[in-house]
């Protein structure tokens, strides 16, 4: 038989192309491209990281005040007993949702563009939940008793109230944190093996060996890996929807006007995907630019994400309008008053920021040119995230502020502590993310490889 074709030498230099978007990828060059992220970081990274830690330190100071002096240091009062704390919680849970959605749902739908972006999205999910989970923990009056929220056997013989929406949250969020972390780490196994093989320092090699579970890529490993991966996806998909529905029921189960609505579950899920995808875009654009990965995360991928943003934006907008319609159409005076107050009360800036950022600006995405313009997309998605934070703020604060009894309607003023909490939550999130980008493969080598042409001798070396 003919031996004409000879395979390329191992570690052959990656092919070059003057258009970064069109740079061809070979199996070997893919490893180089992805793994070059995992290298001693430069000045910019360190600057960003130090700054991030500084901000985080300030926020931790604020948290310390909250615990030592009590929540009085915040701007809360009766009736606004929740404000920034739960706003942050819902916001970050929402952010967290996109990751699993992209990786799990799109995996089930076998949509290929996910392969380029899902690792970043999943990292965002895990870190997002980690951030979100902090707020229910510190928002209580006596955080040192938070463990009472878990049903553990105790000598008192008392348990948690399984009929309370807050208890549902405990279960839902912890399940979500666990499952999404597993999903993330399992997906990493083959890629970490690749990292391991290139690691020089024995400590690094050791750590990566641990993370890769000694993965060799043997056939039986691949078989069960994909067997299990399918089920992770199958489990995570309904979980995504259930978790944010449960979060929305924290509000929908209460009878506060503006919360008490059957619309909330789908409304919140749509909002979560909306903000999550926007955040993914915000994370991907700098990375692909900084590390010259335009050929791996292509404009087409980004455009598909943009379309997802557009879709969910319209769903969220529809929910806003429905809420107002029901308030106007329904018989509930308190609710009607509330929604009038939302749009025209002293908190009107929050409401209109939310509305314009989430409903009006995204309309630009109808234009293809806009969708493929990374700068514009980046700015728009920033706006979307701001808007989505304010959506939760508006839902929580305005509703509580104009509850049933007018006798104690006061004005809410945000406190320094709460601002520190907001900023700190971002610092906390990006602390994880900055580290992640430099120590773990931010793109799935194995899965992208599956999309590459398979070398066959039979057809002249290519498919």
């Amino acid at each position, binding site marked *: *038989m003919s031996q004409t*074709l000879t395979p*390329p030498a*191992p570690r052959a230099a990656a092919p070059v192309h003057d258009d970064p978007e069109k740079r061809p990828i070979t*199996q*070997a060059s893919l*490893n180089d491209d992805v793994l070059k992220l995992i290298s001693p970081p430069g000045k910019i990274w360190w600057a960003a990281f130090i700054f991030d830690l500084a901000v985080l330190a300030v926020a931790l100071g604020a948290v310390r005040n909250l615990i030592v002096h009590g929540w009085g240091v915040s701007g809360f009062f009766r009736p606004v007993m929740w404000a920034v704390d739960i706003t942050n919680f819902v916001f970050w849970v929402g952010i967290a949702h996109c990751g699993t959605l992209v990786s799990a749902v799109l995996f089930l739908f076998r949509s290929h563009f996910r392969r380029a972006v899902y690792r970043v999205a999943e990292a965002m999910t895990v870190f997002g939940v980690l951030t979100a989970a902090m707020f229910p923990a510190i928002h209580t009056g006596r955080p040192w008793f938070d463990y009472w929220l878990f049903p553990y056997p105790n000598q008192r*013989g*008392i*348990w*948690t109230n*399984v*009929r*309370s929406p807050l208890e*549902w949250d405990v*279960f*839902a969020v912890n*399940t979500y944190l*666990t*499952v999404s972390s*597993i999903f993330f780490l*399992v997906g990493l*196994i*083959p890629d970490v*093996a*690749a990292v391991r*093989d*290139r690691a020089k320092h024995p400590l690094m090699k*050791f750590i990566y060996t*641990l993370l890769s*579970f*000694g993965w*060799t*890529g*043997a*056939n*039986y*490993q*691949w*078989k*069960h*890996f*994909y*067997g*299990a991966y399918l*089920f*992770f996806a199958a*489990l*995570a998909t*309904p*979980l995504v929807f*259930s978790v944010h529905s*449960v979060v929305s029921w924290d509000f929908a189960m209460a009878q506060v006007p503006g919360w008490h609505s059957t619309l909330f579950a789908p409304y919140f899920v749509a909002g979560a995907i909306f903000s999550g995808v926007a955040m993914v875009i915000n994370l991907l654009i700098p990375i692909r630019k900084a590390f010259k990965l335009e050929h791996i995360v292509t404009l087409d991928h980004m455009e598909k994400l943009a379309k997802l943003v557009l879709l969910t934006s319209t769903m969220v907008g529809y929910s806003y309008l429905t809420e107002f319609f029901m308030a106007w159409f329904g018989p509930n005076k308190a609710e009607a008053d509330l929604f009038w107050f939302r749009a025209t009360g002293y908190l009107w800036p929050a409401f209109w920021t939310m509305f314009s950022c989430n409903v009006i600006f995204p309309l630009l995405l109808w234009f293809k040119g806009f969708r493929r313009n990374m700068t514009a997309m980046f700015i728009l998605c920033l706006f979307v995230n701001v808007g989505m934070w304010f959506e939760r703020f508006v839902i929580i604060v305005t509703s509580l502020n104009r509850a049933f009894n007018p006798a104690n309607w006061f004005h809410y003023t945000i406190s320094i502590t709460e601002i520190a909490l907001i900023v700190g939550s971002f610092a906390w999130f990006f602390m994880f993310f900055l580290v992640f980008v430099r120590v773990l493969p931010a793109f799935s*080598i*194995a899965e992208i*490889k599956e999309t590459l042409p*398979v*070398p*066959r001798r039979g057809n002249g*070396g290519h498919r």
Partner: protein
Amino acid sequence: MIGTIQKLLFPPPPKFYGVMGIYYFVDDAAKAVTALRQAGHKRLQVFSPVPHHDIVAALDEGPSIVRWVTFVGGFLGCTGGFALCWYTIYTWPMVIGGKELFSIPPFTILGYESMILAAGLSNLLGMLALARLPEIRPAAPYDPRFQEDRIGIWVPCLPSESAPVEQAMRGHGAEEVQVHA
């Protein structure tokens, strides 16, 4: 310290007896696998950066059974969730908001979340167990190229039998053949 623990957890690989063939072209590897299996080497192993369909076909194995582990875990989780809800109320029934003591909807939510949690965990454990992860004592000599673009076929055999295997591998376009004897 690190070194000690490393030794503790990952002892040095044992001495292997067998033949390792390295391939670049997938169809070559697939053909080799078929040939070797026909030659009676059922215990061969294939290493690759990504699973290739034709190799999987050549190996001719059934689907993974991890799904059953997952199912059992999920089932237990669901029952456990409902049982927990029922017990907490049974052991100290407190009326809240005039609601039903044993009210199904909240039970469903907790049972559901518990099911997902348990299923996820058992899925993970099942996978690790079946895939023999973490692989502390490697079952074959390993080559970093398997993580890049090369495919490895390992046939464990006595040094006396290695010659025909090596010959078969080269015959199917192996890029390189290592004999461990």
